[in-house]
């Protein structure tokens, strides 16, 4: 079984690289990226990612807009939001189902909790792929 491909997007370079490294140790194929533009560029360049870990607050384009872009491009990519503040997500109902994140985790996140969430997200993506959704 191939490795789960994870993209970590956070403007805190130290955090993004360290987290990527820890996930790699745990058997994920992780790429770190420090701005949303680069992240979207990578996704649009046909790089296949199964799960994106996305910081909510980032310069230029915030996490919510990025999430929407990702979902519009490929709705099977699961996104887990990472947030350093109490803002949370205010999407509800159908909108949340369509453009919402898989989950929202507060920083600093526990690595075990995070890996569990990534695995659950991957399972969900796998199910969607099996049902033939997305591109």
């Amino acid at each position: 079984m191939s490795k789960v491909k994870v993209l970590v997007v956070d403007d805190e370079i130290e955090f993004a690289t360290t987290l990527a490294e820890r996930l790699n140790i745990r058997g994920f194929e992780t790429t770190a990226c420090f701005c949303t533009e680069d992240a979207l560029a990578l996704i649009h360049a046909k790089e296949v990612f199964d799960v994106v870990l996305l910081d909510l607050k980032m310069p230029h384009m915030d996490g919510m807009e990025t999430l929407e872009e990702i979902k519009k491009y490929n709705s099977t990519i699961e996104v887990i939001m990472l947030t350093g503040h109490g803002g949370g997500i205010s999407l509800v109902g159908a909108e949340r189902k369509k453009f919402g994140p898989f989950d929202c985790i507060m920083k600093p996140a526990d690595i075990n909790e995070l890996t569990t969430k990534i695995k659950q997200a991957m399972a969900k993506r796998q199910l969607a792929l099996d049902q033939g959704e997305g591109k």
Partner: protein
Amino acid sequence: MKKDLGWIKKIFPGVDDYHKTMTSPERYRRFRRTLSMVMIATFLIPLILTTMLSYYEHRSQMLANLRWNAESAKKTIEAFLSELQTVLVYTANGHTYEELVSDDNLNTLYHRLKSYYPGVVDLGIIDHKGIQQAYAGPYELFGKDYSDRDWFEVVTVNKTYIGLVEMGYRKVPHFAIAVNFINTTNGQNWVFRTNIDVTTLDKYIENISAGPLSDIFLVSRKGEPRLQTTSQQYGPPLSPFPYRLPTNRIGITISEERGVWDYVDLKAVSFIEGTPWALVLMKHGYLYGKDWSFFKARLFFIVLASTFLALFVILLITRLFVGRIREADEKRESMMAEIEHTSKLASIGRLAAGIAHEINNPLAIISAKTGLIMDLLELSEDFKHKKKIASEIHGTSNAVERCKVITHRLLGFARRMDVTLESISINNLMREVLSFLDQEALYRGIHVDLDLGDSIPIIESDRGQLQQIFLNLVNNAIDAIGKDGKVIIKTRARDQNSIQIDVIDNGKGITQDIISHIFEPFFTTKDSVEKKGTGLGLFITYGIIKKLGGQISVRSSEGVGTTFSVILPVKINLSRRVFDVES
């Protein structure tokens, strides 16, 4: 623009004090006193003015009546005297001087005249030398010489004369009327004279009505005034009249002659033209007059009754008014304090959340880095100090974990989370909460009583958050007791729209200086090592209750215990809740 009340404040100090922030009882007493004084003055001044006006109006009305009476009496007497003079003139004009000096003719005239005017005492004809040439009457006065008398000179010059009352030869009070004629035969003057008994004048005056308590009489104008007719008060004619007459000869002069207390004689004096007399009309003690007494009594009663009524109403109204102002001031002050407290907590909440967010990012890096170090340590082979490093990193990781708990709780207070609404039976929820804490309470010998009210409405709220609130409150109650005590959880419906839950403990209580800070973050009294609190429990509880549209309050007596009361709405007003949280 603020109005300058300087002059009002000089007269009524404290008139605008009520709006100042102090709510001391003395300030309100002063305000009440001032307000009462202003109102009483506002009422009494017009009342006194109206009363005085009525008093003087009534008095001037009485004076006008007196003047009218005097005027009328004067005219009556003048008409009587004029009539007498006219009778004399006509009587004399019907005869020549020669005819009249014949005794028979004068006697006939005398008797005829006496039959009309019984007061006529006698008639006499005096020639130009002053010798009485003819006389008809009861005395022997024929041939009497009047040439040296003043009146004879006056009548020669003035053509008519009315004399003062005197006793004369007749020894009865009488007065003389004399008319001067010219003898057409020789062109010499002669005088036709009659004496009239004063009783005639008395009777005539008696018939002039000037109302009760009045005394009308004539007095002499020259020298010391003497009565010319009988007075009820001062006696028979020629008695002295104790008052001086006014110098004003024209019109009627009214004056008051004061006696003791309010006994006042009102005196109207009028000089009678062509006579040496003045008419005097006196109202004795007119202030004792029935009308006046009745008027005064009525006036006095009305003023007294109105004043008492006004004083009663004014004092009642001012008391109510100042009481209401005081209540409103106190309410306003307590609301201001509440608002200040709430806004202080909100500001602290925002500040704390901001700081937590700023700390969270570096904390996340530390957490990730220590995590990576631990990962790498696990992957590497044994080397010197590996265990020591692992242990130090583990310690660092624990410290980060503690920081994380604090920042997450702080953020939780300010976080705008989706509230999951569901129908909740508060009694069931309290039972659930208690099931978490049963063991702890049992272990500490604390008895928890559930006093759950009947017919409490099902509320719409967030179950998880309510559980957090009451877990926190009951946990605090258990901590406040320590060992062996009692916690009561009471639920009841306040009205159709809200319910109340009281968590009551019989612990050590909270002192007044602490109670005002208990909802502030990082405020804790749990100082023992094993129970060390974050000081965020009640702060977060407060935030959640506000978010759910409720209120929390606390009452405590030191040594007796503490009661936390939570009021929750039956239905949450979502728009208001969001506003509350965001603001």
